[in-house]
């Protein structure tokens, strides 16, 4: 009896878990769509910016900007993008592992690595390991431009003050719904892009007040755009990873329920058989005593 009841309780428990994972899967699926739409919405700005950047790089000569300054690399800043929550498969651990590799590589080159973290998961990991985190950015799940701005502002000001000589972003690149690639991207120092289509360019712009001034203003905004882009990619990847993880969990729960139901039926059968045997035996016994 007790075994049967035990199995029944377990099935109930697993079913409840399955319900939760299923809901989470559906929520994540809805959020991916939103996140993808936001990535699309951010494209026109980024594309236009790159377009202007390319033509301005042709027109401007000898611009001195703190973000274009190349120094011997002694201090490196790594900006890690993680999620605020878990239950999203290897999403967090993938980028954390990549970050650790990057830190190891840069340290072995004799450079001092500082770590800035976005998202609670990355923070608690490195905090627990006792690795010093120079800056922690709390960013909501909405991942808005304003929030990303505090990250890029920090990057721009600390690089301009020569606190760091190189800056890397580590984030999950959103390749597709089923593929998110942990990526490291060196954002600073900037390589001024000289367009390859230089000769076929027909538009001659009038620069107001001058090409150099436009480029000067454009560079920090360009960093903003890159940092924001990475944030959007990371957000979309997180939802995709969570959806996949929750789908797996739901499937596994289903598998478990099937197995448990089977053993429950077996247990019930065994109990019935046992009861039957007992009845038959006792009946036989009574008959036997009466017959005497």
């Amino acid at each position: 009896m007790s075994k049967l009841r035990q199995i029944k309780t377990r099935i109930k428990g697993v079913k409840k878990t399955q319900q939760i994972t299923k809901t989470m899967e559906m929520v994540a699926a809805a959020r991916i769509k939103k996140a993808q739409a936001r990535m699309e919405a951010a494209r026109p700005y980024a594309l236009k910016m790159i377009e202007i950047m390319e033509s301005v790089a042709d027109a401007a000569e000898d611009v001195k900007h703190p973000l274009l300054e190349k120094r011997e690399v002694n201090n490196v800043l790594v900006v890690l993008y993680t999620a605020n929550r878990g239950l999203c498969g290897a999403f967090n651990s993938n980028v954390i592992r990549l970050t650790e590799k990057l830190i190891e590589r840069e340290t072995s080159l004799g450079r001092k690595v500082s770590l800035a973290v976005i998202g609670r998961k990355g923070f608690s990991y490195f905090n627990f390991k006792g690795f010093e985190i120079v800056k922690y950015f709390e960013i909501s799940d909405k991942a808005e431009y304003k929030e990303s701005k505090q990250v890029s502002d920090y990057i721009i000001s600390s690089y301009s003050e020569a606190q760091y000589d190189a800056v890397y972003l580590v984030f999950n690149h959103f390749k597709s719904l089923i593929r998110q690639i942990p990526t490291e991207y060196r954002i600073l120092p900037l390589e001024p892009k000289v367009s390859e289509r230089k000769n076929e360019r027909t538009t001659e712009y009038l620069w107001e007040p001058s090409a150099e001034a436009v480029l000067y203003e454009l560079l920090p905004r360009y960093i903003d755009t890159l940092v924001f882009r990475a944030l959007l990619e990371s957000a979309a990847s997180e939802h995709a990873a969570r959806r996949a993880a929750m789908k797996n969990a739901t499937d596994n729960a289903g598998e478990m329920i099937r197995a448990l139901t089977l053993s429950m039926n077996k247990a019930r059968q065994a109990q019935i058989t046992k009861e039957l045997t007992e009845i038959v035996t006792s009946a036989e016994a009574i008959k036997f005593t009466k017959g005497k």
Partner: protein
Amino acid sequence: MGDRKLTVEVVAADKVLYAEEADMVVVPGYEGELGILPLHIPMVSILTRGEIRIKHKDHIDYFYIEDGFLEVKEDRAVILASEAIPAQEIEPEVELKAQEEIKRMIEQAKEKGEDFSSLLEELNRSLTRLRVARKAKK
């Protein structure tokens, strides 16, 4: 100037806020206001804090802009804004309240002898927003 139109787009970092055909657009340029008409030569300009006016035959659309860039090319004016708000979305009461608050904070900072330049900036922003909102209402 005839029927020639100009496509005006206001693009923020996270979305396209506005894309319409208009007769003229006036933006806060680096050295004062810039009016762009159709057939303007290709140009890129830095934009400063202020208002954008997009003129149609029978009405004008107003925007507040924090700063950004303007690109004009082939009857298309694209405004890249780090922050832009359509005038009708600015709430004058909220701005007034915020200004009171900022002024109080500035007074406090003055007493303590702290730096309040960023507060002044904030106040300036709010005042500009209010001005744009009021102008659009007229």
